[in-house]
């Protein structure tokens, strides 16, 4: 793949910024190359430059624009990614929820659920350790990318994906073969509530959430949008609800109304009860 021209880079950066408040910044040529190269090829275009020319010639919001947006915002993920948030969930967060609520449904929101490994991991933690809670739990899975969100609905993963981070005990208990792939059993799939949603745009119709996972997604947004998203998430949290962000992320200075709690290696932000 040829080098990316500065003008093309700037156009893609502006496009992502205006369409999904995604701040690419500078020096991400490798990311554009690796992610948009395939989009260009699929569209029968010679290179990134031809892709940009073609995007400019078409109305915004068309399928090619959508594909570019999706390719640039897809999150790398794996089952039990980072481990410790799920340990905190099992050892502290869910037990605390149980001690203060009897029989109320548990609402969890994976706010950038990508291909679904995170919500399925949460579902496995619940089914294994808190079967009663699992029966009344709903996991809202949202992502800006309709194509990857469909994978959460289907719950089908390649062998490469189930090989990563998923304990063998969990694989055989919660998945079954589907040809060359593996499919999550209905007891997990039935807990998922997938919806296409752009976090950068104010949302409606989201019920108060007990637990929100917003890991490794804020990095994609500029400071102003990031602050707006954190504020909206806080307002969406139920009293006493908690927010997980990525291990290397910070919401310092935008966490009004949230108190920091440390559970082992996990930092969570809690809305006052």
């Amino acid at each position, binding site marked *: 793949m040829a080098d990316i021209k500065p003008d093309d880079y700037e156009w893609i950066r502006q496009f992502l910024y205006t369409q999904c408040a995604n701040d690419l910044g500078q020096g991400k040529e490798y990311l554009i190359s690796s992610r948009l190269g395939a989009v260009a090829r699929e569209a029968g275009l010679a290179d990134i430059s031809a892709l940009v020319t073609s995007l400019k010639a078409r109305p915004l919001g068309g399928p090619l624009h959508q594909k570019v947006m999706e390719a640039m915002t897809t999150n790398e993920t794996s089952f039990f990614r980072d481990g410790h948030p799920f340990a905190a969930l099992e050892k502290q967060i869910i037990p605390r929820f149980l001690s203060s609520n009897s029989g109320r449904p548990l609402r969890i929101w994976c706010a950038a659920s990508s291909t679904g490994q995170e919500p399925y991991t949460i579902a496995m933690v619940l089914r294994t350790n808190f079967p009663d809670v699992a029966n009344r739990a709903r996991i809202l899975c949202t992502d800006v990318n309709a194509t990857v969100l469909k994978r959460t609905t289907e719950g089908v993963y390649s062998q*490469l994906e189930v090989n990563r981070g998923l304990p063998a005990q969990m694989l055989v208990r919660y998945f079954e073969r589907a040809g060359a792939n593996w499919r999550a059993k209905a007891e997990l799939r039935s807990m998922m509530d997938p919806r296409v949603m752009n976090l950068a745009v104010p949302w409606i119709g989201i019920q108060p959430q007990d637990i929100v996972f917003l890991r490794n997604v804020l990095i994609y947004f500029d400071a102003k949008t990031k602050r707006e998203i954190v504020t909206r998430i806080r307002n969406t949290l139920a009293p006493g609800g908690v927010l997980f962000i990525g291990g290397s992320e910070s919401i310092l200075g935008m966490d009004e109304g949230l108190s920091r709690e440390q559970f082992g290696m996990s930092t969570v932000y809690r809305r006052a009860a």
Partner: protein
Amino acid sequence: MLEISQEDIAAIVSLVFTTTLDVEVEAAEGPPPSGGEVASSLVGITGNWDGAVIVACERALAVRFARAMFGISDEEVGESDINDALGELVNMIGGNLKSMLPPPCHLSLPTVVAGREYRVRLPGAKVVRELDFAANGARLRIAIAERAAA
């Protein structure tokens, strides 16, 4: 009857190549161009399904596979390295195909055959699937032979 779809076979071949070589495989049409050196490997499957999986690939691809498995350069790759790598290639493809057959089935240890001019005969078996792929410009053929139920 073999009930594995072409898509599933392609998915497994792709899984093996992207994982071990970080190379995309594409479906190819027709037999590989003649002339180049070809190495083949075979695993037998017995049990509720009886037959064999045969992988034939151009030497360049076999060398590349050996290089990736042993972490050495093209010049360092010897015949025994190629044989071992091809044995593992057919083991991975055959083993994963087996998981889609009616259980229980058992996988044999792999056999590797070098050179172009040979014929493999599996008494009572006939080839029920033959798929051609290209990876990095080199060709690869997967054949599945099934032995008729007794």
